[in-house]
């Protein structure tokens, strides 16, 4: 099985969409969680949204051992589903808050990298 990350290219993030009711789901599924339809298709979203919650890891995971501290974020995409991601160089809660605008900016290994949105909205 592939995660959300194997298909993310060029600022887009791969998700699952129900061909019957249009619901969008970020996590691997074989049925639609709204209508139970099994007609699930892959789709790509623009990848910008708001931070729903986050943490800043000082004790890193193995794959990010050289990157601590960094942030793990759960992001509510403007297009209507919620994804997880990684943010480089966030060292203190003064630098990140719930509600901050962030955007998907590609991958680091298999992780989905998010960055703070720079102006313009």
């Amino acid at each position, binding site marked *: *099985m*592939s*995660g*959300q*990350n194997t298909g993310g290219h060029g600022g887009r993030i791969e998700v699952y969409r129900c061909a019957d009711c249009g619901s969008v*789901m*970020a*996590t*691997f599924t074989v049925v639609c*969680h709204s209508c139970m339809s099994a007609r699930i298709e892959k789709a790509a979203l623009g990848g910008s949204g708001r931070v*729903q*919650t*986050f*943490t*800043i*890891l*000082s*004790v*890193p*995971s*193995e*794959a*990010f*051992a050289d*990157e601590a501290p*960094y942030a*793990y974020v*759960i992001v509510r995409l403007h297009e209507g589903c*919620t*994804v*997880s*991601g*990684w943010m480089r160089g966030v060292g*203190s*809660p003064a630098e990140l808050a*719930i509600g901050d605008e962030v955007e998907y900016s590609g991958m680091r290994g*298999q*992780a*989905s990298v998010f960055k703070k949105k720079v102006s313009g909205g």
Partner: protein
Amino acid sequence: MSKFGKMKESSRESMSAVSLSALNDAGLSPREVDSAFYSNAFGITEKQLHIGPLINTSLGIPEKPSIAIESACSSSSAAMHEAYIHIASGADDICLVAGGEKLSHLSTMEATSYFAMGSDYAYEAINGVTFPGLYAAIAVAHMNKYGTTQKMLASVAIKNHENALSNPHAHLHRKLTEEAYLESPVVAYPFRLYDCCPFSDGSSAVVLASEEKARELKDELVEVAASERAGSVATLQERKDITGIDGAELAGRKAFRKAKISPSEIDVAEVHDCFTIAEIIATEDLGFFKKGKGGEAAIQGETALGGSLPVNTSGGLKAKGHPVSATGAAQLHELYEQLLQKSGNRQVEGAEYGLAHNVGATGGSCTVHILKRRR
């Protein structure tokens, strides 16, 4: 149960020893066991799977059926539930449940990596989050929504370290002050070292018997008034609200209905405090306190010994320790002693009903047991 902490023995040795002592305590020979339910989620780190027949053989009962049950941190409460179903169905009269884990041969990094396999690896671990990180993200959301504070988190850790001082089985026997908490290193914002349970070794076992058999064995009994399980979406990103665990709420509601009591009738509770926020959320999900009020209840001492509902008198996962697969059965061990008034300095006077709440990972699997003193 064994002393939690660092052990020399393998899981196989330790689980066999606690199984035999639980059977002896019940006045039984291993030969009287009908089925055995074992949990050893991280046995693979000891290069051993399929531990059931090894333990049965060491107990002299290789011919008995055994099964290993894995449900992350809730493994042995899930095993207990299966044993309960075997007895309730009439299939068995006596079941043995044991859980154990050895982790001290792993570095912190290795253990963290193994534990991450209990998350939704493809979406969570892959993005650099660890278990402390997942619960930290839950804490950030809870603090943002309800105004839960760092001092409230600290109060949970301080209480559980205090309780562990009078539990000889506990891993950490160290009084914790707010100053020491605040000076301890940050692990994953907002968690400091003392918000986290340690990596522990240890084993625990429970013997479950039908009412008829149990009456033949002992005068003082503890009844399983409810054994209920439920689930939640495993992946935090798919949950509607991460400030609670809906599977735990559901398992709790089912358990109270089954036992025909309300949350206010519980005298003592062991809840899954792998991280300080987890205890706060558990006390809300179970209906002991209103949503968002668990932190306030903790800092006001309501969950301390002598409070309105003593929670984690054993020291909890926080200070008693968290040898993953041993935890669910160890919670039941604490309640068993509490209900039989054998808890010494940490005794809750006259306890009649105890509740155990055990969740796997961030709540994908949830078990709630209600135990009742029988005379």
